[in-house]
């Protein structure tokens, strides 16, 4: 695991995790970006993107996540390159953990690999 990490110079989301709930989601700016949902054991269960079709960007996406209750905490990053950053985060997760998050299994056909 760790040896893989040292070979990959991509970075994860640096913003700290915060509790996932409707109030926290509503407080977010409506910008475009990417986010990560983490369960109570600390495992990343989903990596998502808030793209140009979201009415209120990350706020809309995280409000939906708060309702879906797939995890208990989240972190996010504002970026206009939401699609490539999302792919990068999934590839990074795969490089470190050997798989994508459990709720991203349908996205694997879009991914390459870091090695």
């Amino acid at each position, binding site marked *: 695991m760790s040896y893989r990490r040292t*070979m990959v110079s*991509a970075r994860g989301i640096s913003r700290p995790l915060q509790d996932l709930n409707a109030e926290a989601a509503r407080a977010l700016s409506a910008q475009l970006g990417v986010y990560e949902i983490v369960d109570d054991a600390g495992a990343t269960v989903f990596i998502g993107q808030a793209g140009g*079709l979201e009415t209120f960007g990350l706020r809309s996406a995280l409000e939906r996540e708060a309702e879906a209750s797939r995890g208990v905490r989240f972190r996010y990053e504002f970026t206009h390159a*939401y*699609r*490539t950053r999302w*792919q990068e985060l999934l*590839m990074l997760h795969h490089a470190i953990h050997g798989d994508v998050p459990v709720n991203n299994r349908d996205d694997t056909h879009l991914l*390459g690999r*870091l090695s």
Partner: protein
Amino acid sequence: MDFRPTQEQQLIIETVRRYVREEIEPLEAGLDPDAGELDPADQARLVAMTKQMGFYGLDIPEEFGGPGLDTTTRALMAIEMSQHRAGLYNPCYGTFGGAGLAQLYEATDAQKERYLYPALRGEKKGCFALTEPSGGSDPARAIKTRAHQDGDEWIINGSKLYISGADKADFALVFARTGDDPGRNGVTAFIVDTDTPGFHVERVVHTLRSTHYATELSFTEMRVSHDSVLGEVNRGFAIANDRLSRQRIPYAAGCLGPAIKAQEMAVEWAKNREAFGSTLAEKQAVQWMIVDNEIDIRHARWCVLEAAQRADRGERFRTEAAMAKLVASEAAGRVVDRAMQIHGGIGMTKDLPLERWYRELRIRRVGEGPSEVQRLIMAREILGGSFK
């Protein structure tokens, strides 16, 4: 010079135009504005359709099963295929198929069996690894990646930058310095399987083209057999250069699609949008922008078609291809910029494709040889070899 399409070309133009408007645009309307791919089921359906039309694998030579289009017809198709939001870099979402790496048509029979034919069947993907952190505009001198021979093997060390598709590729065409010549005569091309120990995809490189990333590669004591050499040792740059020249005409033609579409949108908007008591179309400032757009589009189109026709006649087309690439990439950028200005606020939003074309067209002035290198190529041709 007659730039009117033949009857057959006109039929192809109309077929592709209908395909873009009836098949691609409706699907695209439901996708993220930066989407780079269709739903796999839609993709499969449309590929079946282009195969039935006889247009699949447009750039595959006829002897390898391609449709055998001449350069002019291919350029006319590129102009049509790029007239949608993703069309500049992903015309029709790749439903007309790829050609693999053109250099592989010059490969040995064994290399063709292993790489070319599987690539043409869609079973393997390749990537082209030429540019390095030390530079991309003058690759012959900038290549620092080195390969040295060890018995029947070569050991490659170095790095590559801005490489598209390396993270999904099964093999890479890697250019490395093998001789003492600091320029083009010391470079060899290798076909390398991407699972070779020592081949690393280091990171994703984000660019203005936010639908697609490039990658950075590193090679650490990467051992490949002598059979991996494509062509001759120390003659690899000619292989790279061939691609760079050949690609310029369709590359230039592809810039025209978004420009034509942006102009259509600007005309439509100007006729309907009112400000200060009249439509935008009635204001001279807007009329002039629309006229300047038309001049840019027609100038670029003529340059592209002249280069294509010279290529089809078997004449030298190096200057014309460089001119077409320079003129089309710069003209299209100006057209989209003016179209955004005419649209005002909405032109800056992701509600319209203009902002995506604006970002992506900026890359076209650098990709496949920047404008300055195109001028250098033309200057060499015009002034003669002594000015190299």
